[in-house]
């Protein structure tokens, strides 16, 4: 009952606040751009490491990571917004006004996704402007964006679940740290086969590695392990959807 209208209301408010306040909008665009500049520009020499065989170049290689990173952090920052709404009491207004409270979680997730789509568009424009090369005429690019969107949804729902349980902005490190670890224990700077030792072992079992490797194969126009990557991302999104909804029940019980 009224799931869609509740989700629409929650998402509208979140997006309205971001897009009418430069102090909220600019960091969302600036941070991914900073990482992209630092990684793709400052570390471009890494592409000369023996065995680095990504044909589209280091800019495209790093673009995939920064796109996924912006998706993940975009989701996490939504959790921070939810925690702030708990501290200001605004969530109580939503809980009171929303006949269907599942719509609150859905609304926050939709807002996170929409915000990230703006970031992704901006990042893509910058990447092409600095000469990023794409293989296979770019026909596989939508799959890359879909994969990153699933990462955004999964991270957003993870952070939402934490925010709903802890209900304080002090919970931000709890939301952010696991995502940070998952991102940076993936093959960020070089392909998986160039990693060695324990970091290779960790990266191998890290689910985000499948996402990054498949994402890079999409931008190269030679998709590989796409099914596994989508399976992992979708499974994480479903898992964290349950986590977020259980968090909502916890918030309801706490009043």
């Amino acid at each position, binding site marked *: 009952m009224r799931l869609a209208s509740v989700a629409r209301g929650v998402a509208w408010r979140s997006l309205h*606040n971001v897009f009418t306040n430069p102090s909220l909008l600019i960091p969302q665009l600036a941070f991914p751009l900073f990482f992209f500049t630092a990684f793709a520009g400052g570390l471009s020499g890494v592409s000369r490491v023996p065995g680095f065989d990504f044909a589209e170049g280091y800019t495209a290689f790093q673009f995939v990571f920064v796109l996924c990173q912006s998706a993940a952090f975009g989701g996490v920052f939504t959790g921070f917004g939810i925690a702030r709404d708990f501290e200001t009491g605004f969530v109580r207004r939503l809980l009171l*006004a929303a006949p269907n409270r599942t719509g609150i979680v859905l609304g926050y997730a939709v807002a996170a996704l929409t915000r990230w789509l703006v970031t992704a568009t901006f990042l893509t424009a910058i990447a092409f402007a600095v000469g990023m090369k794409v293989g296979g005429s770019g026909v596989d690019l939508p799959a890359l964006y879909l994969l990153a969107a699933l990462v955004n949804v999964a991270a957003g729902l993870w952070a939402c679940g934490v925010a709903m349980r802890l209900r304080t902005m002090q919970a931000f490190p709890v939301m952010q740290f696991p995502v940070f670890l998952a991102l940076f224990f993936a093959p960020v700077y070089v392909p998986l086969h160039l990693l060695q030792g324990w970091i290779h072992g960790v990266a191998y079992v890290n689910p985000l590695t499948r996402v990054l490797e498949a994402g890079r194969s999409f931008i190269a126009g030679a998709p590989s392990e796409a099914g596994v990557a989508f399976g992992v991302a979708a499974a994480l999104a479903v898992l964290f959807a349950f986590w977020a909804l259980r968090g909502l029940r916890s918030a309801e019980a706490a009043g």
Partner: protein
Amino acid sequence: MERPNTIEAERLVREFKKGPRAVDGIDLRVEPGEIYGFLGPNGAGKSTTVLMLTTLLPPTAGTARVAGYDVVREGPDVRATIGAALQEAALDGLLTGREHLRLQATLQGLPRAERPARADELLERVGLMEAADRKVRGYSGGMKRRLDLALALVHRPRVLFLDEPTTGLDPQSRAALWTEVGRLAREEGVTVFLTTQYLEEADVLADRVGIIDHGRIVAEGTPAELKAQVGRPTVEAMPADERIADVLARFGEPVPSAKGVAVRLAGDADLTAIVRALDAKGLLVDNLQLHQPTLDDVFLAKTGRSLEGAGDEEEAASRGLAMQPAA
């Protein structure tokens, strides 16, 4: 068939971990279109009761139904039927008043075409039309309260919960809010559940009053019934003169008076008879006052404490700062 907009609670309990029973088995029944005043000091359990009735807090035990819907099992139906303005008007400082109304209307599923007109109607009604397009962070406390009331009314609720709605309001805003609440009940048939710690508010506004203390309802009835329970009016005369006291004693039982002499009237004695008796004796009085019993007298009679200040004692006690006798 539409369900009646009643509020019912049976043996409703709310316990907090490591805390006392905030609500300790209360029974309630509020009839359709009635204004029910829930009166008590800070910490008595008023707000906790409202949180349970509005589905924001699950009860530990007991049952409650609002507009015929169970607050635990049928929460979505309850929320679709009620409006509520809670103690803290949690508003988003980045939104304008009109945007808040738009958000609330969307959450409640009001048809899109209906929203602008409804927002204008409510902004006009609460006197916020001029400030409608200003961000809420610039609103005064009174303006926020009025916007909160407008938000509670967006979807034309059949039951309205107001948790200390006039706390912090200036007398003019308070009177305006009383007028609006009275109009809602009488003209639109809205059932109103109003918590307050102001005796005057309960007295003026409520059809019936429930007095809560330490999580229990200690008295319930119309203000007149409750006051009648605690006894007859008193008459106080000044100055404190033995001859005046003798005259007054013929009309009732003497009671202590700080400034003069006083009696609690007995039987059908009234002020006119007292004036005549004093005149007949040639006694001059500086001041003669008739004191009707107040709800504070009711609270005093039921709990042994005065309502004013009772909350402060409880708050101090809950912080472990219960008053100690002076050394």
